[in-house]
């Protein structure tokens, strides 16, 4: 394992120290491990709090700022945050209008956010939750923990964040978050495993010429292995899986996402194939994002996330956002 780190145990703290130094527009509390917008709480505005294991950067701390999150709770690498962090963040950003928790569907995240929400309720802070479960690689059945939350988390955080910024009440902000999740699907492919600092070696081994299909964002092995194909073939596997779960049509928001170790040039090649596939199926990549946004440490590979847009969702996606990881508009 070669990484730019000081010690396995200080990875998250050291990275938060760097985040604080690089972004004076954020307030990073190193003790409680919460990243805030410098001007949070905003009275009357619904607060947005998300969080999860570290190792997915820029998710979530990189999406704290105007038009998106009010606070993020980074856990240890691939380990959901603890209730204390979430309580701290939630009570701090509750501007009286309540707080939305955006939670990726993993047992650990769900349990820790649930415990925190109960504690917040005790303190009189109203909390609603959007559970993101967009990953079609996992069958949602009695026999699994349900579909995982992956790339669509970014869509939910951006769009719900925009609505909250407009002053919408908690119920509406939660409703649009749920709507985005319901309209979104993702599928990921790994060319290589990631290496967690704690394990010090790749979580799984892929031979030259092999890819792992249907991976999550924690270096979990996927559902199957396949021979490495061309960009076109790999994208088609992903798009066929998305299409099977949610027929593609009309204006679509697309994220071609790198897993952390994927060069941008390869992601653009993948995007060209996604765009072609959508057009073949009568859909349009009306809005798109290409880059490493919802990552898995140093994993090589990509995921595709799609969200079928409505006029309202398009308007909110286009609304201004100013965060370290996503920034546009006036």
């Amino acid at each position: 394992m070669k990484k730019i780190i000081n010690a396995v145990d200080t990875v998250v703290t050291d990275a938060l120290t760097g985040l604080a130094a690089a972004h004076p527009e954020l307030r990073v509390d190193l003790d409680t491990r919460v990243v805030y917008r410098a001007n949070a709480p905003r009275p009357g505005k619904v607060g947005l709090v998300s969080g999860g294991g570290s190792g997915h950067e820029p998710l979530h701390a990189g999406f704290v700022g105007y038009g998106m999150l009010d606070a993020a709770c980074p856990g240890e690498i691939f380990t959901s945050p603890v209730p204390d962090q979430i309580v701290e963040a939630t009570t701090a950003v509750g501007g009286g209008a309540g707080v939305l928790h955006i939670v990726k569907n993993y047992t650990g995240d769900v349990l820790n956010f649930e415990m925190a929400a109960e504690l917040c309720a005790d303190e009189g802070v109203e909390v609603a939750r959007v559970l993101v479960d967009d990953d079609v690689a996992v069958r949602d059945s009695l026999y699994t923990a349900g579909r995982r939350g992956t790339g669509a988390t970014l869509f939910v955080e951006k769009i719900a964040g925009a609505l909250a910024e407009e002053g919408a009440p908690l119920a509406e902000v939660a409703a649009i978050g749920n709507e985005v999740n319901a309209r979104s699907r993702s599928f990921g492919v790994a060319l290589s495993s990631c290496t967690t600092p704690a394990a010090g070696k790749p979580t799984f081994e892929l031979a030259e010429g092999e890819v792992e299909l249907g991976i999550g964002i924690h270096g979990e092995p996927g559902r199957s292995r396949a021979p490495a194909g061309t960009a076109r073939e790999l994208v088609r596997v992903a798009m066929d899986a998305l299409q099977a779960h949610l027929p593609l049509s009309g204006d679509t928001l697309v994220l071609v996402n790198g897993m952390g170790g994927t060069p941008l040039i390869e992601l653009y090649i993948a995007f060209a194939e996604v765009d072609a596939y959508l057009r073949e199926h009568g859909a349009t990549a009306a809005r798109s994002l290409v880059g490493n946004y919802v990552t898995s440490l140093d994993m090589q590979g990509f995921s595709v996330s799609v969200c079928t847009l409505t006029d309202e969702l398009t308007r909110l996606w286009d609304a201004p956002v100013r965060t370290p990881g996503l920034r546009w508009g006036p």
Partner: protein
Amino acid sequence: MNTAFITDWIDEITRLVAAEREHLTALDAAIGDADHGANLDRGFAAVRTALSARPPGTPGDALVLLGGTLIRKVGGASGPLFGTFFRQAGKTLGDSPEVSPAELAAALADGLAAVRALGSAEEGDKTMVDALTPAVRALEQAVQDGAGRRKAFDAAARAAEEGARATVPLRARKGRASYLGERSMGHLDPGALSSALIMRALHISASGSR
């Protein structure tokens, strides 16, 4: 058993978890996200600090402190689950300064029930529940049969170990391993193994000098 016995037990778990850290993480790498050993090791290190900062007054107090600290420091799935296990057990013990093996058995049974309620896992789902359930069952049986403390705890540890081993062929239906579907078969569940370590530590404490 007094408070010192319980803190001994906790120390022994801490040692075993530290010794098995890499092993637990490697098991989690196979069907999870390669952090179970690191998670528990971090949690129990924090427990040591918490115990010396505020030495508990009763066995129940010790277990509540242990559980609360795991909930607050571990994160992930195992943090709230193991935390709830110990915290509920501690609450059941109440504030008696001495507890009998039968009382401990009842407390752990309550802890297990709380874990099942929180995580909604059944036996056979390939989780910590597969080790904790037979362990609690064996402990209750041994106590009922009038077995001595050491023997009862050994029975519980053996049952947990066997339960953990029995997770190997299972297909996971809860937690991250469930994402793998059939590919989760053939691997030992890390949380089941750490549950067995917890029960083995209880036996070791009872075999020690105190």
